[in-house]
């Protein structure tokens, strides 16, 4: 996983609230057995018409969206299904950070495992960011700060998730190192079905 320290990029704005993971990647694209190549189908239902042609009015199809690595979305981004295909598709498309005023639990957990930084900001900063489609935004994970013209705000993130993102490591190494404690737990609960 590529370490995440600081990122300055143009941002794509999707102001809708409650963007669910079925919109991020519809279920018909979950039939694969690998993680690769899902970016093509990111927001497929909104991005393409019934014939598969790009819809000009969808922000991701705007020429200005090319190369954007930050997504700014309405409240409760990533609700619904637990599919990790959602962050896989966002990362495959090129996104490295999602900014909102609230992000759904499972999506947030899946995002950090794939080097995609979930950034939850206050309502005022969120409003200001939503008003700047295709503007430049800087996300500094070290300083836990988001900056854009007229916006400078701190965000909170779980210290462990932050460490993993900064180092580009995943959580499995930490869990595997717990083996002795896991074994002890298994012994202590014998007879209780565990």
């Amino acid at each position, binding site marked *: 996983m590529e370490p995440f320290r600081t990122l300055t990029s143009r941002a794509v704005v999707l102001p809708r609230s409650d963007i669910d993971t079925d919109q991020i990647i519809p*279920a018909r694209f979950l*039939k694969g057995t690998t993680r690769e190549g899902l970016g093509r189908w990111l927001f497929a239902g909104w991005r393409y018409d019934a014939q598969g042609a790009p819809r000009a009015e969808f922000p991701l199809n705007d020429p200005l969206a090319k190369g954007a690595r930050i997504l700014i979305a309405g409240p*409760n981004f990533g609700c619904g299904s637990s599919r990790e295909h959602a*962050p896989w598709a966002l990362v495959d498309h090129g996104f490295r950070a999602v900014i909102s005023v609230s992000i759904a639990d499972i999506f947030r957990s899946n995002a950090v495992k794939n080097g995609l930084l979930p950034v939850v900001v206050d309502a005022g900063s969120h409003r200001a960011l939503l008003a700047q489609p295709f503007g430049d935004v800087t996300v500094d994970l070290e300083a836990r700060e988001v900056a854009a013209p007229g916006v400078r705000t701190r965000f909170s993130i*779980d210290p462990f998730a932050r460490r993993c993102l900064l180092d580009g490591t995943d959580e499995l190494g930490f869990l595997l190192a717990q083996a002795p404690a*896991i074994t002890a737990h298994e012994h202590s609960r014998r007879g209780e079905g565990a």
Partner: protein
Amino acid sequence: MAPSELPARTLFDRIWQEHLVRPETEETPAVVFVDLHLVHEVTSPQAFTMLRERGLRVRRPDLTLATMDHSTPTTPAGPAGEMEITDVECRVQLDALEQNCRDFRIELHPLGTEHQGIVHVIGPELGLTQPGRTIVCGDSHTSTHGAFGAFAFGIGTSEVAHVLATQCLLQRRPRSLEVRVNGRLGPCVTAKDLVLAIIARLGVSGGTGHVLEYSGEAIRSLSMEARMTLCNMSIEAGARAGLIAPDDTTFEYLHGRPRAPRGRAWDAALERWRALRTEPGARFDASVEIDASALEPTITFGTNPGMSAPVSGRVPDPEREREPAARRALEAALRYMGLRPGQPLQGHPIDVVFIGSCTNGRLSDLRAAASVLQGRKVAPGVRVLVVPGSRQVKRAAEDEGLHRLFLEAGAEWREPGCSMCIGMNGDQVPPGRSAVSTSNRNFEGRQGPGARTFLASPLTAAAAAVTGALADPRMLVDAGLQRSA
């Protein structure tokens, strides 16, 4: 230590503490032990790849159970019970699960076998879903198992790999929210109507970061299958999980199930399970109260499960929504659904009815639908799919003759699976068509590109099937049934 020296604990506190391998600190989340890991074909292949890449084995195959449900066909089987898989991608995914289960020695219930079915239907059916357990699956509707007083939640594929490799997960302790449901549900008002009302009350993100504990008179009087319907949709309020303290209803359901404890082990388990409850004086981080007796048969009209109304009511008017973002969301939803502000819901024409899913695909759900369809015909031009949640549900329904009743009414009787809830197997609602569905999500395109979904109970779905429009089941169910409901 005397009880008075310990703070009173909620049911969740207790399960959490009993599964801590390592408590959380400022720097690191808690390491939580998983008692049961359920696996299916869609969210697991990449997890097994992660294991292979690192040369890891499955730590506890004995606590892992796999089945096939999401991408399986539900078209009626051939004379020898054979199932034809025409979708090549689906076949590859199903083959991968078989290979992975063989390589890592995981118990698999493949297509066409005795205990195959939707993962959240077969866990309880087998008696593996037990009070006090921690249960996870790469599927957000894992919250279903909370009906037994288990802490059960959906995880992503990386976490599936974590559990396969270590039988543990890294978790921050969620907050707790009590949903107290007073009074009793009225005739034709079911657990589905209740959970839709709860989601409308909390909002689709109102439960974020929380475990919901359902309590109160209305909950105590629900059957296990109804409790599963309720806990199943906890995730639709954004909650991590839903929980109901186990009681005699729970124990009766579990007794004699294939994987439930037997003999002295049963007695010991029962003693442990009876202690699993929120202690008097325990504090929740938040709580809400709902009056069950005020609820009516409820249906969604929008594009998330929080947008619902009594089926006897009208489509809300976005103009009356003060908050601009909420107004825009409602306008977009009504445009997608093809509804006009203020129009009555009843009488709105529909094209498809889907009865099934991990929310409402159990025997009692099929019986409810059958009670409406009995002696009636599906309205002309309406397609009705009845998809049992598991092979066991299918068999039990057929033993009662429900399949004949559905077929005579003009419905399709299918093989078990997730089917039209997610539409991965080709069971889809055509673009622009309206479906009344007993499933859990009415998101745009969920049941197929351009599909319009109205979520409702099996009774309300069956009422729509026979009238060809959104309908109040109370208008169809005779007085005799109302008394027994």
